[in-house]
């Protein structure tokens, strides 16, 4: 049974209607370790050894964060800089993360339609996530299609409910083996996987 580590980063969670709802039921899924990075490291003083130990103990590493300035909040970058050390995570001697999976859960205010060549954001989410994808690759990990929850500014409670249920289904599915990582890899976005499954 794959063990799942969720690294959640939101500097202003108390104001985020969407994310409060999203993480509400995730923390109780068995076999899942939920780590609230801004709560853990209010001073950005990331405990490298503790984080590396956690990585070793899990198979799927989930980064759940809002999409700020087309990227992650700064603590995620801080975490990557310090924890994914040379000689440990990458480099000729760094093989500690080999074979693990990298999965990003992203919330963005702007709608999906904006994140296209013809839209306001001009590039797709996958394009914006290329630095993360390459980071995962350098660490010999498999980058899974991200779950992007978009258009949160205008999202109704019903819509939020759908996203929230998909998020739960994804995590519990990966945890109990009913969703295998290989099931996701053919798709660009995890949303497409769900639509294909739910469409059947």
């Amino acid at each position, binding site marked *: 049974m794959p063990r799942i580590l969720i690294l959640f980063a939101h500097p202003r969670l108390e104001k985020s209607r969407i994310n409060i709802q999203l993480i509400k039921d995730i923390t109780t899924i068995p076999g899942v370790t939920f780590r609230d990075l801004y709560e853990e490291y209010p*001073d950005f003083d990331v405990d*490298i*050894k503790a984080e590396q130990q956690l990585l070793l103990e899990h198979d799927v590493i989930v980064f759940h964060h809002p999409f700020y300035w087309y990227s992650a909040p700064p603590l995620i970058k801080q975490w990557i800089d310090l924890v994914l050390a*040379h*000689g440990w995570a990458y*480099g*000729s001697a760094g093989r500690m993360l080999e074979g693990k999976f990298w999965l990003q859960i992203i919330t963005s205010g702007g709608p999906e339609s904006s994140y296209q060549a013809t839209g306001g954001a001009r590039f797709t989410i996958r394009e914006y996530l290329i630095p993360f994808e390459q980071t995962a690759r350098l660490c010999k990990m498999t980058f899974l299609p991200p779950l992007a929850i978009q258009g949160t500014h205008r999202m109704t409670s019903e819509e939020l409910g759908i996203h929230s249920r998909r998020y739960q289904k994804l995590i519990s599915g990966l945890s109990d083996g009913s969703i295998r990582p290989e099931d996701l890899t053919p798709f660009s976005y995890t949303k497409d996987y769900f639509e294909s499954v739910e469409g059947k």
Partner: protein
Amino acid sequence: MHHDSFFYLALVYLTAAVIAVPIAKRLGLGSVLGYLMAGMLIGPHLLGLIGEEGQDVMHFAEFGVVMMLFVIGLELEPSLLWRMRSAILGLGGLQVAGTAIIIGGLAFLAGLSWQASAALGMILSLSSTAIVLQTLNEKGLMKTTSGQSSFAVLLFQDIAVIPMLAIFPLLAIQTAGTDSASSQTWVGSLPAWLQTVVVLGAVGLIIIGGRFIIRPAFRFIAQTRLLELFTAAALLLVIAIAVLMTTVGLSPALGTFLAGVVLANSEYRHELISDIEPFKGLLLGLFFISVGASINFTLIVENPGTILILVLGLMVVKGLVLFVLGKVYKIGTDQNLIFSFSLSQVGEFAFVLFSFALQNGIFDAELTGKMVAVVALSMAMTPLIMTFNEKVLLPRFGTEKTNDREADEIQEDNPVIIAGFDRFGNTVGRLLKANGIGTTVLDNDSDRVDTLRKLGLKVYYGDATRHELLHAAGAGKAKLIIIAYEESEKNENLVHLVKKHFPHLQILVRTSDRTESYRLIEQGVDHVYRETLDTALRMGVDAMRMLGIRGFHAQRAANMFRKHDEKVLKNLSAVRKDKKVYFSMAKSAIAELEELIQADMTDTDLERDAGWDSDSLREEVLARFQPLPKPDEPKATS
């Protein structure tokens, strides 16, 4: 063993002290009363273990007072005096003048000569520095309004003794010349005006000598680097001044006080204090014992009514003058009660001044004997009435109960209780309040409470170590309690109480040092905050930055240091418990420091920011293209 032998006396005095003082402290009466009771017990009128030699011991033990004044003088920085000038001159001056006039007037009405009345008024206006400071310190009241006001008054009195001693020869009744006592010193044979000149001259000599002779001498002695020699020099200084003063017929206590003030700004201040302190403590104890022993029970038994009325009358008059002044100076009711009660006795200077006045022929022997008994009794009663005030009066008339607002305001249930709201607690409180978190604040300084209330803060007066008060403050419903008293004992008591009665409360405690932190960790407190740690680290960060180390690195280094230090603190605490070894404070502090420094050197955790450090990456890249030069190979010039 002969009754007069030194060892016999030492045996009696020390045994009495070692038995009586711990019992008195256990009963909550304070050490001063313990010493006094020990003295009464062994004195000639009860057990009779010591007889007339008690008088000699008293002369010897007066030396404790001499040393105490030296230390008080040393602790008086001119800047402190300047800051307290209005309290010292106003409160102190009015107290001495008011009390002296009232008591002198009463004495004159009772038929004493005007000279004797004036002298008596002046002598009885003084209070006991030794008893008051010792008692206030033990009760942890020195930093409160009452403590500070008492200190100011005592200070003025100490200074006022100088002019009194100068005035007394002028008050001498003409027949004084025939009195044998006064001709014992050569000064006594001089005419009155010349005596005054000599007195002022001696004072001047100490001030000038302290500045231009004593400091260079100490510098010379310090260069020998022999610790015991410095102690010897410190004792020599005190004794030399005492002898000089006695030769010219002045109080030795005054001389050393002056010398202390003169040396307060010198670099040897702390060394002098720590050298003299142990002698001072022991001799003061001896002094209190001999005061106890000198209480003439025969005299009291013969005129119980007169003595009792005199003692009570005296204390009531002094207390009333103090209370009125306290009102004038707007001291809150219960702080004022502490202030008035604590200073209502007559001080140890009275014994010195009585014998001086006797020598000058101002008083006769009978009056002196009676007054010495009255003064000694008033000193003995002080710890008792202060305990009475604390246990009986304050709970009834203190701010706590007389304030009607408290009852309805304390109804509120806040998630946080803050106990202790001095400079530490109030920063915590302001941060929480600024973020809209409700706090219930308890403090035991009623004046501070009143001030803060005027500013619109909800602060309640009271001793948080009382279960009922904690309950009234909403401890049953609160989530956490912040314990931020300055006195560690109070913090520990409160922790104990909270753990017992309100186990659901999370406890955060302020501590002043490691030893205190250890004790709290042993009590099972997880959140211990050393009050100076973060500030010291911030200072270290700024120092590093001034040396050119980049801010972010310095900041992270300090974070790391703090986490490391806190980890070590917890580990050492556990070790300490296992070994059950008692180190003296100094020893353990050194051992800890060593352990800390060694841990810093070996702990690889302190090298952590490798993610931003490209050294290893560079090595790997370079290794791919060319082998690294071996260390012993000569380097090619580049």
